[in-house]
């Protein structure tokens, strides 16, 4: 379909249902299946708000002719004027929230959280809310593109599949790779099967915002990579840079937990981090720790606890003894009194929960630092109380392949070594996220055929040889398993809320099946499409999921209606195998005195949402800046550099430099300079392009010694003023103080507990 046809459709709100006939002719899928899709959607209805009126007729365009289509016997899913809610899954970040989407006249309009989902409990963050703007984004790709004579040109879907079959067929199977973001469920299974059919082992999974180091520590100490965190049961949460309200692991879930944590007896929140995150902004006590020294602070607190009579595991005793509070204070910049105070608070409020986040883990000794944080949990006896075993997920094949940065490094190396002939990209934008120091863009030239499955013409797509547009999350089928599983294990089901905006565009599952059929046609001949594949998967569920002897059809409908399948797993128990902790002192660097903090934002995330106008226009939670990048500098640092808000500074590391406007802010350590992630796109779309800078570009290629993860927060930089000044655009220009008005009033927690405490 050409762009023109789409344009002519858009004013008619009924187009996506009623033009189904014409749409399917252009689409590779037979008509009957699409109707089935939508019928199933009808069954998947979770609630209808009915205003009860006669159903009118409507006029629409069908195959260029004006046809009167009667609504006397309408499809169940299309009652004019009535919104129908369908359950599906949110794919805006890997947290795995369930959503309800409001569909009216065949168009998805509004997303809400799925109250049945134990992950987000009916709530939905701003990125989830913006799912509709990803779906309806004006810069979405509608047609496949092939590189011809060095330029990407639109081609037909038939040609695209043909080229793909040729190229992948010609390649040696073992030299084919998949490079994806976090994937789970049956899509992950199919990717695995595709690689297996090819005989390749190259599945690189990459996320910038990840907790790979933390998972490794959890695995080693607790014996489970992702245990359950009972924030609501903790009386004190001490977070070392774990922005669990913003960007860490499962923010919406943790926010619902946080609400419980803060009510009743009201837990205490202490956050230690070099740059104030959203979680830090909600802390009772926020500690500006010198960047890279969080591990020492944890050991200093452990030492203070030890002095108060808390026992230290033998293996860690040496490390703890080495960091007396006085020494820790000197290194971290947190006063001895504060260290003692935090230790006292931890002792007083039990059980507590100590979390390590990206600023701890993203260091050259990130694993060791995160282990030091975990040591606190072990010492305080939190393991088993607020850190609880999740047990093994009953369908391990569906568990997520969690993203990390080690795979990014490995992929760049493999490309550099010319070890790959064909690379498939999905759900990741490595050309944007990879530091220049990895040399990824140059290395990509060594891969003869790069296929990018994407919705947007992003930086990676610009390097592709074949760009295959894929369906948006609101048009696709899928199953998703979140890495962090709350008390109730869950597989979230994704079903299309509406027909595809760009006919012919396959979902990821369909594309994978097509690829698989190119290799092993027989094995997959039973499945016309991914829809039937998933139906089959549900049909093959064991008896325990069929309470009351549900038939396959009933089970399928019920699952879609709820949008999820709850699964049980027997929780085991967690270990407390604390190993030896060796934290070396950090040497000062005269040439690059500052640490660069590429801080993630709830909103633009790692840059994948930069083309969503709502999220660009939503002010950053802390600085209230919109549509831009900025460098957060402590007033003392700014004074030293002689800069003020809006002055442009050049931030240079040994691997590159960026120029960015200064935002002077006290919530950042004087030794740190924080530049938010997400902007600085060279491609992507009209809203993203040309705004701000991408701090990832100048990161050093140093990795954590133990896990091989990139030390994202370890890059040393210097900053110099350029003399250029540009106003930062932000909400509320005079936004520091309430000027003595009682706009936000604050009372003490003690008073709160007296009047409202439980």
């Amino acid at each position: 379909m050409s762009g023109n046809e789409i344009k002519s459709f858009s004013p008619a709100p009924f187009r996506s249902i009623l033009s189904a006939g014409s749409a399917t002719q252009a689409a590779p899928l037979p008509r009957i299946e699409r109707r089935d899709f939508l019928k199933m959607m009808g069954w998947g209805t979770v609630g209808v708000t009915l205003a009860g009126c006669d159903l009118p007729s409507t006029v629409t365009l069908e195959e260029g002719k004006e046809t009167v289509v009667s609504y006397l016997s309408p499809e169940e899913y299309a009652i004019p004027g009535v919104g129908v809610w369908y359950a599906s899954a949110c794919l805006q970040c890997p947290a795995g929230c369930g959503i309800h989407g409001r569909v009216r006249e065949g168009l998805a309009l509004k997303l809400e959280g799925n109250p049945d989902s134990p992950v987000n409990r009916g709530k939905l963050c701003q990125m989830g809310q913006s799912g509709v703007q990803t779906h309806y984004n004006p810069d979405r790709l509608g047609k496949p593109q092939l590189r011809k004579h060095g330029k990407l040109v639109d081609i037909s879907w038939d040609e695209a599949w043909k080229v793909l079959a040729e190229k992948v067929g010609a390649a040696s199977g073992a030299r084919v790779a998949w490079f994806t973001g976090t994937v789970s469920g049956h899509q992950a299974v199919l990717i695995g099967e595709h690689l297996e059919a090819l005989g390749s082992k190259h599945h690189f999974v990459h996320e910038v915002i990840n907790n790979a180091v933390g998972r490794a520590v959890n695995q080693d100490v607790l014996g489970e990579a992702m245990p359950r965190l009972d924030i609501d049961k903790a009386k004190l949460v001490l977070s070392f840079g774990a922005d669990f309200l913003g960007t860490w692991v499962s923010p919406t879930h943790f926010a619902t937990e946080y609400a419980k944590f803060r009510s009743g007896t009201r837990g205490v929140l202490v956050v230690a981090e070099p740059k104030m995150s959203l979680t830090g902004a909600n802390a009772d006590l926020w500690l500006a720790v010198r960047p890279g020294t969080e591990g020492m602070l944890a050991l200093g607190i452990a030492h203070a606890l030890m002095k108060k009579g808390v026992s230290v595991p033998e293996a860690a005793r040496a490390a703890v003894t080495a960091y007396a509070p006085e020494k820790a204070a000197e290194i971290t910049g947190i006063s001895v009194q504060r260290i003692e105070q935090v230790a006292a608070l931890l002792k007083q409020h039990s059980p507590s929960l100590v979390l390590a986040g990206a600023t701890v883990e993203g260091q050259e000794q990130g694993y060791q630092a995160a282990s030091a944080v975990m040591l606190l949990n072990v010492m305080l006896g939190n393991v088993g109380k607020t850190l609880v075993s999740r047990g093994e997920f009953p369908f391990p094949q569906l568990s997520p392949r969690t993203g990390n940065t080690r795979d990014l490094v490995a992929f760049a190396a493999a490309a550099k070594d010319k070890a790959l002939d064909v690379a498939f990209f999905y759900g990741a934008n490595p050309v944007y996220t990879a530091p220049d120091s990895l040399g990824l863009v140059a290395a990509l030239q060594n891969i003869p055929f790069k296929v990018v499955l994407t919705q947007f013409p992003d930086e990676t797509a610009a390097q592709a040889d074949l760009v295959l547009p894929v369906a948006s999350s609101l048009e696709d089928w899928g199953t998703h398993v979140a890495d962090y599983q709350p008390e109730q294990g869950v597989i979230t089901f994704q079903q299309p809320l509406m027909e595809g905006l760009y006919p012919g565009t396959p979902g990821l599952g369909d594309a994978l099946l097509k690829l698989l059929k190119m290799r092993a046609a027989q094995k997959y001949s039973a499945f016309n499409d991914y829809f039937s594949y998933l139906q089959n998967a549900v049909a093959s569920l064991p008896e325990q999921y069929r309470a009351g002897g549900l038939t396959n059809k009933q089970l399928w409908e019920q699952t879609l209606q709820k949008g999820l399948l709850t699964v049980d797993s027997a929780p085991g128990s967690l270990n407390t195998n604390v190993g030896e902790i060796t934290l070396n002192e950090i040497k000062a660097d005269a040439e690059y005195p500052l640490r660069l903090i590429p801080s993630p934002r709830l909103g633009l995330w790692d840059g994948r949402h930069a083309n969503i106008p709502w999220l660009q226009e939503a002010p950053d939670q802390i600085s209230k800046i919109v549509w831009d990048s900025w460098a957060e500098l402590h007033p003392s640092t700014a004074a030293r550099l002689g800069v003020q808000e809006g002055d442009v500074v050049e931030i240079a590391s040994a691997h590159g430099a960026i120029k960015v406007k200064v935002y002077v802010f006290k919530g950042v350590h004087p030794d740190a300079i924080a530049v938010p992630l997400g902007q600085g796109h060279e491609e992507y779309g009209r809203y993203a392009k040309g705004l701000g800078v991408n701090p990832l570009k100048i990161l050093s290629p140093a990795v954590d010694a133990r896990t091989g993860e990139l030390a994202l927060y370890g890059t040393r930089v210097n900053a110099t003023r350029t003399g250029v000044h540009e106003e930062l655009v932000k909400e509320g220009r005079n936004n520091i103080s309430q000027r003595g008005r009682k706009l936000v009033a604050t009372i003490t927690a003690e008073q709160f507990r007296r009047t409202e405490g439980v």
Partner: protein
Amino acid sequence: MKETELHHDKDIRDDLAWSQINSDILKSLENPRRGYWYTVIGCLVLLAIGITAAVLQYRYGLGMAKNHPHMWNLYIATFIFWIGMSHSGTLLSAILHIVHADWRKPIYRFAEAMTTFSLMTALLFPVIHLGRLWNFYWVIPYIPARGTWPNFRSPLSWDGFAIMTYLTSSALFLYIGMLPDLAIARDNTTGWRKKLYSTLSLGWYGSDRQWRIFRKAYMLMAIFLIPLAVSVHSIVSSDFAMSIMPGWHVTTFPPYFVSGALYSGCAAIVTLFILLRYYFRWEEYMTLAILEKICKLTFAIAMVWTYLNLVEFSSVWYGHDIYAKEVLWSKMTGAYAPAFWSMMFFGSVLPFTLAFQKLRRHIPTMMAVSILLNVGMWLERWMIVSPTLAESFYPWAWDVLWPTLTSWAIVLGSFGWFGLLFLTFVKIFPSVSMYEVKEMVYHRKLAREKGAAHGHAGGAQPAFSLSMRKEDGS
């Protein structure tokens, strides 16, 4: 300089022949100095700029001129400015008429025209500033089909009534006052002018009965107009005083606005006085003695205005309303401080030049001073509107807005529009009242003769008198 010496202490020569008065005044309809045409061209250019800006703003939206929270800005400030300008016409023609201040006679006509035209200019602004100006008539209480009336509680709808009433009355007053002169013009012109004046003079032939009725009607209109003029600016001030915003919610606003209005109006009269005197070579009629008197009047009003300013400041100071205090303090020290202090300087310090006779009689100085006084008064209006919007109750929304090019262009355009209306008027109608000047000359002559009989030296009169003068009533 020569004439200055000649008529040092006389408002007007008392030996002017009536026919000379006729011809001198009617000459203005034909051959002004070149400067007149330059001014017309200047006004046309300004108007073109203003219209361009207005069309662009109409097409693209008010974003070209405003921001949040500056919902009102230059347009409303300029609106008040023009409304204020209108007041002095009424002061000269009506108030000074009923108190029989004789010296107003050569100059009240153009002042009255200024009233009408500045009202017509002012009226543009509430319309231009509307987001959907094509629906402006919804504020008028026409009989609506759907029973939707305007909101009579809103000071903005009172504005509409007040200004329309004032405009109608002052236009009528201007016209009635012109009737005898139109008849003179009719008798002394040919061609289209004759036709025009014949129609407009309504068959005036100067009979005793006509004069008597005319006198009564004119006096009635004058009396009617005075409370109206006071009420109009009071109502305009209630746009602000009736709101709850700090810096606007001030009980002294009505007299403050009225005094400011008279002030800027008088200053404008000085400017126009000098211009007309130059364009039409009216040194005989618009004498320095009269200029001096207006200047003195202006000075007096300036002092009233200054006093009311101090009243406002001190009531804010002693009122202990933290919000109002904040706004006042930010006016004095914040981003708008230069404008505020310029206003104070132009409005309260500069008028002291009017206290010196040498300066009062120096035309270039008076031209400059009168314009600067009006700059000060324009700044006053801006300082009423903007600082409150910049800093009011809610600190999150605090923001300072510097006017955009579009809004400046429209403000300048309004000067072009006013100037064009005014210049057209003075070219078509006698802008000095011939019959009243004759009256004045006659009074002077009588006074001189009487004075001579009583042994007084010359016909000297008090320079400025609000007392009833016996000979006037006779």
